[in-house]
Structure formats: C-alpha cells, structure tokens
C-alpha cells in the first residue's frame, strides 16, 4: 500500500515495515480516511497508519513496538462500536484485525469454538449449526461485528435477559497486553480455579490489550419460539405488563417495548404494522425446548389477558416472527424518516422504575423541546432513547447533547448505569466519574496501568482525559443506512 509522510518515530515506522509486507501496512491518506470513524459517526479522527496483522505473533510484535516507542494504538474489527470505542488516535495507529478471521477449531464434545478476533459473530453460529449448537450473544450488528469487538465491549443484544451478554459466553482468551506481553486467561472449562481474569478483561474496551484467540461457549439452539406482540394505550401500561410477567416468575428470552414514535419509524422504514390506537407495543418472546415453551405459553397468555391489551398478535410461523423482529430492529435506521439527526443513549435503570424513567424523559423532552423516541429492552431496564434533532439548525446539536446528558444523569440518579451494552468509549467518558467515586476511578486507572504502563492501548477512551476530538454532526452509519447494523 502507498506510503506517505507521517510524524511517527522513524524507528517505529521501520519496525512496522519489517513486520508487515507492503500490502498489509499503510500510511496513505486515502486508505486512512476509511478508518476515521466507527459506528458513532459524530467523531472522526485520522490515524497515522493502519496495519493488518495475520497472526498473534504480528500483533504481539506490533504492540511491543507501540509500547517501546510510546505510540498509541486502537484495535479494530468491523468498526461498529456505538460509543466511539474504536475511534482512531490522531497520533497513533490502527491495528485492523479483520484478516485474523479463522475459526480455528469447533469441538462438539467440549462445546466450544476457538476463533481469531476478526471472525464475524454470526459466522460462529453458522459453523456450529451442524451440531445444533450456536453462539448465543446476538447484537443487532451480528452479521458484521467481530468477536474481538464483542469481547472488548461485552456486547449485548435483545436476548440478554435469559442468556446474558458476551462475557457470559466466553471461556478463554489469549491476550496481548498493552506492554506487549502475552497472557492466557481462562480455559476450555466452564468452571474455573482462582480469580476470573477473563471476566475482568472482557468489556475493558481495549484498554488492557488485544485478544488474539478466543474460546467461545456454544449452547444448543432453542427449538421452539413463542413470540407475541401486544398493543397498549400507554407506555406505562406496557411497563406494567412487564412487571406482571416478571412477578409471575416467567423468564422470557426477550421483552421489548416500543413507543408510538418508534412504531411510526418502523412503519415508515420497513412497513411494519402495529395495532391501531396503540401508544406502545410490548414484544415478548419465549424460547427453549418445545415442552417448556408449550407450558410457559399458556401462563404467558393468561397473564397478558389480565393486562387488557388493545390487541395481540402471535407469530404463527418463523416468517411472522422475523417480521416482528424486523420492525423492532429497524427503528434506528428508520428514525431517519422522522428526523435528519439523532443521538441514542443506552442507560439502564432498575426495571421496576422504567415507568418513572420514561415519564421523566418525557418531561425533559417537553422542557427542552427536543423530541425523544423510546424503544428499549424492557426486561433488562435498558433504555434506548433516541434524541432527535436537525443539525442544520444552529445550536441544535448542543441542545440535543444537553438533553442526552440529562438522561444519562437520570439513569445514575435512579441507581442504574450510564451504559448497558454500548460501552463508555469516547461518548460517555465524561460520565464515568459520576457513576464511580474517586478511589474507584483511581483503582481502574491502576489496573489499566498494570496491563499497559504507557497507556498506549486505546488511549483516550473510557476515562475522562484532556484529549477529546470535537464532535461533529450525528448521522447514520453507512451500515445503519443499509439496515445491517442498528443501535440496539
């Protein structure tokens, strides 16, 4: 690839050229431009160089060089991070892991897949299908997002209520730490002896190092589903239905709520149909063995009956189930029909305070005059307010950001979290100290420095620091426009 002048240290550049052949190393501005942003398009930073390792050895050599010469690096998979987690550093390099995309082993007895970090999430499930197994975490971008990114940000999805997040499905990883050393965390066993190092690494947003090989747990695919969509005259009523289901002791795989604006967007975007007069819809999905689903279905129906919905639609087959989910997952790309720009947050509140949180978001929206659509993982208390604005108007972005900040603060005040699944990244780093006190923040910094003394790994993310690139207008990521990725 073409080489252009950079101001990286000469010795470092020489080292990169020794590690990489010309077609896997670039400093050409045309190439670098494609790495400027990730899924959070508000930020754009051009790195000094991009390298494409094919092996753990190359990753280790690269990181060791970054450590030696103090060059910051950002590891990147498909670049779908919604918190700006894989945004490049202006003085550093991007280590693009897409060419480390081999499934190294599938073991049906141990029920594991051993993969490189650049393997796409859905590819694991496809490969495991021969044994009726799958990789359970299903972030909406699963067609394109990579396992390395899923690990770094502990990716979630619509089915976390029953199945957990990425961290709950990873058994082991080989990791190159920020100082270039290689460690192995975990084993192929579901059980562990000693402190759970892997648990601490997963979700560390690339600040500790790079996973070069990952052992994933495979579980049997559910054989039966029961998916129902119920319309209600208010979001509160839909929220009450969620509480009733939880109190009755049912554990659905997913429970999602969409408000009227979100329904409008899905209708405009993919032609989704919702009950007339409904101000909110609740989607509940049961899954598992057919014997279990059959019994739970009867209980769920009896409970929904009590909530007096305006209407109920049960998915009669796989096609109808897919339609319900298509509508639900299209909301983010479809909001473009209602508003040219938007910000999405993913804060969490205790589930029993969802109604209160939504009321307060409504009040904020009314006071600021900024419309907010709500679609959320109701089972987890994981909000996804879409803060809509028109960036062509002066100070609209600032107002929208102020609204977003108020909503994040609301989540903290209610005893929740600033992020349920997108991560802190670049976007929410100013808020982390509001969630954790000084000693807790210091402790996380100490851990980071223990793994990466020169802070070269994903420098500038998660912790508030001085080096913040300024935000530009929000807009849809190209993948969102195509409907491949969404912000849930």
């Amino acid at each position, binding site marked *: 690839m073409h080489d252009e002048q950079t101001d990286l240290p000469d010795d470092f550049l020489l080292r990169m050229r020794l590690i990489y052949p010309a077609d896997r190393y670039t400093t050409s501005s045309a190439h670098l431009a494609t790495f400027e942003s990730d899924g959070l398009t508000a930020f754009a930073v051009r790195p000094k160089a991009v390298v494409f390792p094919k092996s753990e050895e190359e990753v280790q050599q690269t990181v060791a060089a970054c450590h030696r010469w103090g060059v910051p690096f950002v590891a990147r998979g498909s670049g779908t991070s919604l918190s700006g987690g894989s945004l490049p550093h202006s003085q550093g390099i991007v280590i693009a892991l897409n060419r480390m995309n081999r499934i190294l082993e599938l073991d049906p*007895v*141990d029920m594991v897949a051993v993969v490189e970090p650049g393997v796409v999430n859905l590819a694991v499930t496809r490969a495991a299908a021969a044994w*009726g197994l799958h990789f359970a975490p299903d972030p909406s971008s699963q067609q394109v997002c990579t396992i390395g990114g899923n690990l770094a940000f502990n990716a*979630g999805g619509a089915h976390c209520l029953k199945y957990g*997040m990425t*961290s709950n499905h990873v058994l082991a990883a080989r990791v190159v*730490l920020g100082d270039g050393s290689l460690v*192995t*965390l975990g*084993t192929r*066993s*579901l*059980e*562990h*002896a*000693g*402190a*759970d*190092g*892997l*648990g*601490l690494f*997963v979700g*560390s947003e690339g600040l500790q190092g790079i996973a070069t090989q990952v052992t994933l747990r495979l579980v*049997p*695919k*559910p*054989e039966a589903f029961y998916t129902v969509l119920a319309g209600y005259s208010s979001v509160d009523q839909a929220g009450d239905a969620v509480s009733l289901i*939880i109190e009755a*002791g049912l554990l659905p795989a997913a429970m999602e709520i969409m408000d009227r604006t979100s329904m409008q967007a899905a209708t405009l975007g993919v032609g989704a149909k919702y009950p007339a007069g409904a101000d909110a819809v609740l989607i509940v999905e049961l899954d*598992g*063995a*057919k*014997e279990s689903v059959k*019994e*739970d279905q009867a209980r769920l129906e009896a409970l929904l009956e009590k909530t007096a919905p305006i209407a109920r639609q049960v998915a009669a087959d796989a096609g109808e189930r897919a339609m319900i989910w298509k509508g639900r997952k299209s909301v983010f790309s479809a909001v473009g029909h209602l508003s040219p720009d938007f910000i999405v947050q993913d804060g*969490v509140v*205790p*589930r*029993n305070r969802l109604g209160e949180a939504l009321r307060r978001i409504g009040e904020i929206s009314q006071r600021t005059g900024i419309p907010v659509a709500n679609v959320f*993982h109701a089972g987890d208390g*994981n909000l996804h307010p879409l803060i809509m604005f028109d960036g062509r108007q002066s100070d609209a972005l600032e107002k929208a950001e102020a609204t977003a900040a108020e909503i994040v603060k609301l989540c903290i005040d209610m*005893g929740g*979290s600033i*992020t*349920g699944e*997108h*991560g*802190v990244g670049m976007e*929410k780093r100013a808020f982390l100290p509001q*969630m*954790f*006190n000084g*000693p*807790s923040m210091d*402790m*996380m910094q100490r*851990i*980071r420095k*223990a793994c990466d003394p020169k802070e070269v790994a994903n420098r500038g993310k998660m912790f508030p620091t001085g080096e913040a690139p300024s935000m530009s207008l929000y807009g849809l990521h190209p993948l969102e426009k195509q409907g491949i990725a969404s912000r849930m």
Partner: protein
Amino acid sequence: MSSMDSKPMTPSSVDEVRDLVKQFAHQGNQRPYLLPVGSGSKTGLSDWSPILPDQLGRKIERISTSRLQGVIDYNPADFTITAYAGTTIADLQSVLDEHRQFLPFDPVFVSRGATLGGTIASGVNGPCRMLWGGIRDFVLAVEFVDGTGESITAGARVVKNTAGFDLPKFFVGSAGRFGILTSITMKVFPKPRGYATLHLPCKDWREAMSSRTQIMHSPLEIVGVELLSDATLLVRFAGEPKACMAMAKRAAELAGNANGQILDGVQEVMLWDELRDLVTAPAHHLIRLATRPGSIVRIERKLQEWEVGYRRVGHGGNSVWLEWPCQRSLGPLGEYCKEKSHPIAGTIILGPALSPWVGCSGDRVYWELIQKALDPNQCFLPI
C-alpha cells in the same frame, strides 16, 4: 478446627475493615498478611497449615466478615439483591424464598454456614448451574476494601451494565488475595416450579460421556449433569413440572439406554442436595478440578490408578470432584495437572494446603499484575 494461632478479627462495619487494613498497611515489613474469611466452611481456602507462615516469612492474620451481615437492598422486580459479605447463603435464600426467587448457580455448603462473600471468593458452583450460569454470571456489583484501605465499588446494582472494568467477575474465585469483599449485588431468577431427573446407569464413564453429549446437544432445558463413580449419569431438568417429566423422557430416548429411570419429588430433591453439600471425611482433601469434557475419560483412568475413592464428574464434564487422603502428598496430582499437553487447574476446598489451588493456571501472570494494582503494599497473601 483451626490450625491458626489466633481467632480471626471480626470488624462490625465497613469503616472498621478500612481502619484495620490501614493499620496493617502502615506496619513494617514483618507485619502479618491479611486473609479475609467468611464462616470458614471451606477450610482449604480459610484454614491453613501452620507451616505456611514459616514459608512466607510472615504470619497470617485472618479477618472475618462474619459480623458484616444482612440484606442491604432487595428488589424482586428487578431480580437484584445486595447484601453484606458475611450474610449466610441460608439467610439470603430465606429472603429470596418469599418471592419465589433463588440464586441460580446453586451455592454449595449452605448447610455448613457458607457466606455470600466466601461463596464468591471460592468461585465454586453447585451442580445445578448448567442452564442459567455460574457465580460469575450472577455477580453484578461488589464493594471491597483494597490493600490501601480504600473502599472501592465496581459494577452496578442493575442486571445489565458495561460501565467500567468488570471487577465483580474478577473477585469470583479470588480467595481473598486482592481485597476484602464487604458487600455484593447478585442477580437472581425466579425459582423453577418443578424438577425431574433422568437416572441413567451406564457401562463405564466412556459410555456415560457419550450419552451426556447426545443429551447436551439437544435443546432440552438441563440444569445439572453429573456422572458418579459407578458410571451413573444424572441429568436434571427444571421448569414447569409437566415439561420436566416430558423432557426427562425425551432425554432417555435420546440416550437410547433402556435402563433409564425418571425421578421426581422428594427423592429427586434429596439426591441433588447430597451432591451439592458433599459430606467428606476430615481426613481427606476435597478438591474440585476445572476440566474439559473431552478429557474426562483420561482423567478417570488416572484416578482409578491412584485408587481415589470418592470421585465424581460435575457440570457435564466441566469439573471433577475428588477426595485425596490428607496423609498422601498432593505432589502427584499437582504434577499431573501441570502436564503441558493438558493443563488442569483445581481448587482445594477442604483440608490443609499450602495454596488453595492445585495444578496450572495460565491466569497467574495476570493475577500478579492485578494484585500489584489492588494491593501495592502486599497486605494480602501472595498468589
């Protein structure tokens, strides 16, 4: 029975824990190491041989969380409960019972007084953790006192959170080497309304493991898969009672073994209670190895060769429980577990030992890095 010189210190508040650690941190190099303990139900982690202090060159002072008791916050509608580390699991379960909820990782040694903090620090899951997950999958937040005497919070008291480093998971299995847990938030789930077990006598462990794989690849909702030393395979199902019976029948068909029997009711519950709260002779170490299912047949051959009396495969082949006579050196087991071609790590749950861990853990280098960060003054025992 403790082999330590003195009784543990028993602070009654988080502030007292902090003060104690700060006092220790300011003493000279000859100060004792601190070892946090709960009720002491898992002696392999809490009650050590007196030879150890000599080897370390410093004494060990235990600090018990037994007076840090009680539920701080229980939110049944959000599936979360927060309690002090010294709260017994039995007390916690009785609170959860009122809302028909439970700790799905099936905590062990409940009848021996196991505490929440000790359960987290041991990292040992009960037999019925297969469907929902282990301790690591249910710990949401921790508050602990680090080696500098600061009280640190990590995680959040909600079921979903990705803000900051996930230290709550790191404390699972940490055996008091990184800090003193003072309170913990756990995710809880609704209690299943019924159980049923397929009891399947097999010719040998090889045949049993083959049936296990057949059954575990099915979409049946399996909470426990145990294999006893006489090659009996036990597969437990949870959910609606009718569904459990139907799933157990389907599992018997999948295994293609006509000797299968389906158990339910009190007999079934008692069977799993016994497996969970293992009763072992004090003359034995109780050890749990973390294993991969593919290696079980090979491990079984070795255990037979060593004439290990009590041995059981847990978690569908992901663990092996065994009793090792205290008078016999743990050396051969350690050597076997460290073999490069198939390294195994284990936890010594009962019995005196030099370290609570046996065998080989690749995590060790990482633990040492994190220990330096959390305990720069080396207040807690080295790894």
